């Protein structure tokens, strides 16, 4: 059996959860799902802050919880480095003492380790400062450092980028990748943002209504239909995979092949033949039943309507369009939907206004 294995059942009132997955050593695993799906509950159960109804939790070959043998190790002895949404720093201590808080309680004082982690996190200049005047990004980095220095068997990050602006989010994401390279521990990254998890994770677990709905590498879950709804502010989007066909260095564009359809994006600095993941926001995809001639949009894809979902109250319609085996979702108004007389199986042209490259 895997050295890191999590399996449990839990019922809290109406909410029922049944989870089972394993974590490969030294890998970054992402748990994602809509809010209320039970992502954070998983973290709390692993930490021991919530006791499941039954199950088995094993980390680094140590059993932390087992309902059969009635074993339940208290949270402080589980050796889990936990980073929460808010940094939760101890404001009566300096940054340095915050960092050493866990280390002092789990192992000998090790200044070399402290220096190593301070370097990875880039917080050397703030060590003597008090925590109340740190910026959000700095505070979260200190919080990650404190967790790492407590010599954990696993690092769990529960939505650690909430409330940070994009440059700071990117910085922390890079730091987490760097940690994974330098300190050999598995990392469990919980987030509702598809961009974050694609950037960071090698394996993705999708949670829906307290259950594992899909898991695998990015390639394996990319076609998961509900992925389109995993976005900040519920801005629907779709992910598709394409391979670079052509690079136009004069006009700064790359052309990718997506199951026979070609998509032009701003230039991707990579080899021809390499594959990339593209994100298309559903609101950026318009529909036409014949190819429009005079239009500024470059990406006009021939697709077939695979599925139609009408939201009467919102006055909007989600069209699932297939490009070969891959699918994208276009969000149009109910009015346009009726005007164009759209039906399942109909051939339509998707006019894609904006595309972003989110991962490899």
């Amino acid at each position, binding site marked *: 059996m895997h050295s890191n294995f999590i399996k449990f059942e839990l019922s809290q009132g109406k909410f029922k959860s049944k989870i089972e997955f394993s974590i490969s050593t030294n890998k970054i695993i992402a748990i994602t799902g809509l809010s209320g799906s039970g992502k954070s509950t998983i973290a709390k159960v692993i*930490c021991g*802050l919530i006791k499941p109804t039954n199950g088995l939790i094993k980390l680094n070959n140590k059993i932390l919880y087992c309902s059969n043998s009635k074993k339940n190790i208290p949270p*402080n002895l589980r050796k889990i480095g*936990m980073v929460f949404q808010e940094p*939760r720093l*101890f*404001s009566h201590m300096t940054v340095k003492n915050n960092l050493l808080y866990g280390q002092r*309680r789990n192992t000998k004082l090790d200044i070399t380790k402290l220096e190593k982690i301070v370097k990875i996190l880039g917080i050397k200049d703030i060590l003597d400062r008090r925590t109340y005047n740190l910026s959000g990004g700095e505070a979260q980095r200190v919080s990650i450092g*404190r*967790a790492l220095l407590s010599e954990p068997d696993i690092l769990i990050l529960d939505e650690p980028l909430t409330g940070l602006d994009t440059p700071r989010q990117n910085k922390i994401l890079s730091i987490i990748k760097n940690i994974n390279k330098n300190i050999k521990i598995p990392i469990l990254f919980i987030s509702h943002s598809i961009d974050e998890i694609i950037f960071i994770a090698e394996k993705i677990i999708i949670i829906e209504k307290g259950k594992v709905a899909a898991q695998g590498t990015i390639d394996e879950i990319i076609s998961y239909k509900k992925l389109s709804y995993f976005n900040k502010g519920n801005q629907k989007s779709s992910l598709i995979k394409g391979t670079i066909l052509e690079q136009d260095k004069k006009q700064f564009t790359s052309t990718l092949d997506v199951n026979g359809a070609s998509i032009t994006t701003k230039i991707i600095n990579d080899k021809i033949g390499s594959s990339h993941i593209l994100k298309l926001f559903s609101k950026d995809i318009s529909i036409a039943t014949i190819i429009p001639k005079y239009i500024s949009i470059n990406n006009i894809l021939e697709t077939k309507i695979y599925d139609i979902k009408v939201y009467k109250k919102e006055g909007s319609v989600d069209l699932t369009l297939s490009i070969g085996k891959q699918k994208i979702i276009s969000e149009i108004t109910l009015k346009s939907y009726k005007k164009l007389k759209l039906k399942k199986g109909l051939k339509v042209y998707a006019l894609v206004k904006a595309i972003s490259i989110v991962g490899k």
Partner: protein
Amino acid sequence: MLSSLEIEALKLSAFIAIVAVSFSIIPGMIIAWIISRKKGIIPSILNIVVYLPLVLPPVVIGYLLLILFSHNGFIGSFLYDHFNISVNFSWKGAAIASAVVSFPLLVRSIKLGFDILDTKIEDAAYMSGASKLDCFFSITIPQILPSIITGITLAFARCLAEFGATITFVSNIPGETQTLPLALYTATQIPGTEQAALRLVIISISLAFISVIIAEILAKRANRHIMGDRN
């Protein structure tokens, strides 16, 4: 200047207040913690009982103490039979009366500290490997220190002001139970001691003033230690 009797009253007042508050701090913190963090019927009842001295007439408290601590009383007989201790008509009784009356102020302040402390911070300490007790001493107490300081100073000031329960419970004996307010009361009862009464009034006001100022300074300092200059 002050007469020897007045100096004695002043010293006694300070001594009794210090003893009363010192013995109240630990039980006060425990009870504040229970009331703030535990749910159920016992904490609710405890909450009401602890606050009672704040709203009861002090004379009622003094009388209840008199019954409980007399040689035939529930607690008094126990103390006398087992430890040969009698608190009646002694400074010990005055300290008990002060402690009881000031206890709600102490508990209220500390409870407020526990109430507003984000328990998520304690969870973070817990997850960093600290035991619950370790977490209490290394995180909780330093975080609520301003509330503890405020509670202690308020309780101390209340002890200095204590009159009704004391005079009912342990009477008004110079050098033993006659604190400042009791000395002032005596002075107001005897013709020709208006000067002495005035001096005692001034001392009382100054003491109250000083203790409140010290409380403010200490609480602000502790707050700055935790929150920076934002407050």
